[in-house]
């Protein structure tokens, strides 16, 4: 379970203090898939960074289970970055194996499990390819396998598919849901795409334009298993979309107005 309690993050900048998120509180129950949506610049990435222990919290606190996240990366956490974070000097197999290598697992076991994970994300045969030899979608698959191989109970995803073309993106979203149905880790997924958020999640949390605060939270009672493309034809999907969009629209407009008046 992820608990975020009245969390504020302020950065000192040459122009004075800048508040990225202000008094944000929410909870993600264990095994749930929750999305955070909000306009660009609402502090979504900062929030994820704080949960991962990469960015210190200015005020408030964050708990993973019953352990507070203080002074470092908590164990048992996975993070899928927006930009590729694969090590360019390691092959696909070596990249996927890295979390196990770091944990000192036996070489044979590490190799076997990494090979198996590459196969599960549809990249059997690409073991010895370097990241630059793979397409954007393939690199995302390698990243996903790298994150899932050590079975973190909490998975943080920062707009992982935003750089992909629509078809690849829908494929990846479906694959993610299939993998998640097996692993059932707690997922906090960041996106600015409301359709993606509704299609994937059990709950959608809307953040306000920066400094981000929680504006509203919506349960998504759509049936699972889902196909992210077909679920959009569901009547309930359209109703939820309209309802949440009303909230989000104001924030997007405000964020846009601010960005253009600068």
């Amino acid at each position, binding site marked *: 379970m992820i608990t975020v309690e009245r969390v504020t993050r302020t950065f000192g900048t040459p122009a004075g203090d800048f508040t990225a998120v202000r008094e944000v509180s929410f909870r993600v129950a264990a095994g749930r898939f929750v999305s955070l949506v909000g306009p660009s610049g609402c502090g979504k990435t900062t929030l994820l960074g704080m949960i*991962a222990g*990469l960015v210190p919290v200015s005020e408030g606190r964050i708990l993973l289970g019953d352990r507070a996240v203080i002074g470092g*990366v908590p*164990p048992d*956490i*996975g*993070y899928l*970055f927006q*930009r*590729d*974070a*694969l*090590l*360019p*000097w*390691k*092959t696909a197999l070596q990249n996927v194996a*890295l*979390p196990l*290598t*770091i*944990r000192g697992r036996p070489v044979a076991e590490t190799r076997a499990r990494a090979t198996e994970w590459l196969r599960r994300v549809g990249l059997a045969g690409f073991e010895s390819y*370097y990241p*630059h030899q793979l397409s954007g979608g393939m690199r995302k698959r390698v990243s996903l396998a*790298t*994150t899932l191989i*050590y079975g973190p109970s909490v998975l943080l995803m920062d707009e992982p598919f935003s750089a992909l073309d629509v078809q690849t993106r829908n494929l990846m979203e479906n694959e993610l849901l299939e993998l998640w149905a097996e692993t059932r880790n707690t997922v906090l997924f960041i996106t600015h795409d409301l359709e993606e958020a509704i299609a994937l999640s059990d709950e959608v949390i809307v953040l306000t334009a920066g400094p981000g605060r929680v504006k509203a939270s919506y349960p998504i009672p759509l049936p699972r298993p889902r196909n992210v493309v077909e679920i959009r034809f569901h009547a309930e999907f359209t109703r939820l979309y309209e309802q949440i969009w009303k909230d989000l629209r104001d924030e997007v407009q405000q964020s846009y107005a601010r960005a253009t008046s600068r």
Partner: protein
Amino acid sequence: MPARRVADRLRLAAGRITVLVAIAAAWEAGTRIGVIDPYFVSRPTKLAVTVGGWFAGGFIYPHIWATVQEAVIGLAVGIAGGVLIGMLFAFFPFLSALFHPLMVVFNATPRIALAPLFIVWLGIGLASKVAMVVSLVFFIIFFSTYAGLRDVDVNLINHVRVMGGTRRDLMRHVLLPSALTWIFASLRACVGFAVIGAIIGEYLGADRGIGWIVQYGESMFDSNMVIAGLLVLMAFVATLDGSLGWLESRFSHWKQKPL
């Protein structure tokens, strides 16, 4: 390799040889018909006899060996020192802030001006040439290591931290490989500078080495010997650079080739 590319390569090699032969022929002809004075520039046939004689008679080997020794030892010391100090500076920003201006000033000093000092301090033997080489190589490697460690993509560091990586894991899987790519990129330049350093050192005061041959030839007003020495030097550097290029391509296999 496809046949087409083999043919392209052969054609290129043939073209290069033709250029060399043409230059040598013009040179030879020029000295024969009296347009150029062979006293100043010698002539290809005479040079071939001289250089061939050096290799056949064994005269040249101790000199090549001396230059190789100076360059290789200097290279090893310079690389080790540059990597070490570069790492220290990257990990302790205070050290870097303290010494950085000094490093920049030393790096900007023309090393040829230091050569006489090295000879006064360390004698005309091996040590002064090694010092000369180190003074050139060290700074190149130092700045590459420093930049390689400082310019690591934060995303990569976070990626490894989140999966449970310790400082040691970061060092081994992210920082060192990143620095290595920078170091490798400058290694080729370093080898060139190492040879230059050794030659300058020999030129200014030594009793052996390829640089000494050139210098000795000059003191005897023997342009044939000077040019023959330079030819040996060129062949030597070309061989070295070629083997380094081959080595480099083997170690950067993970890199994207430019389109």
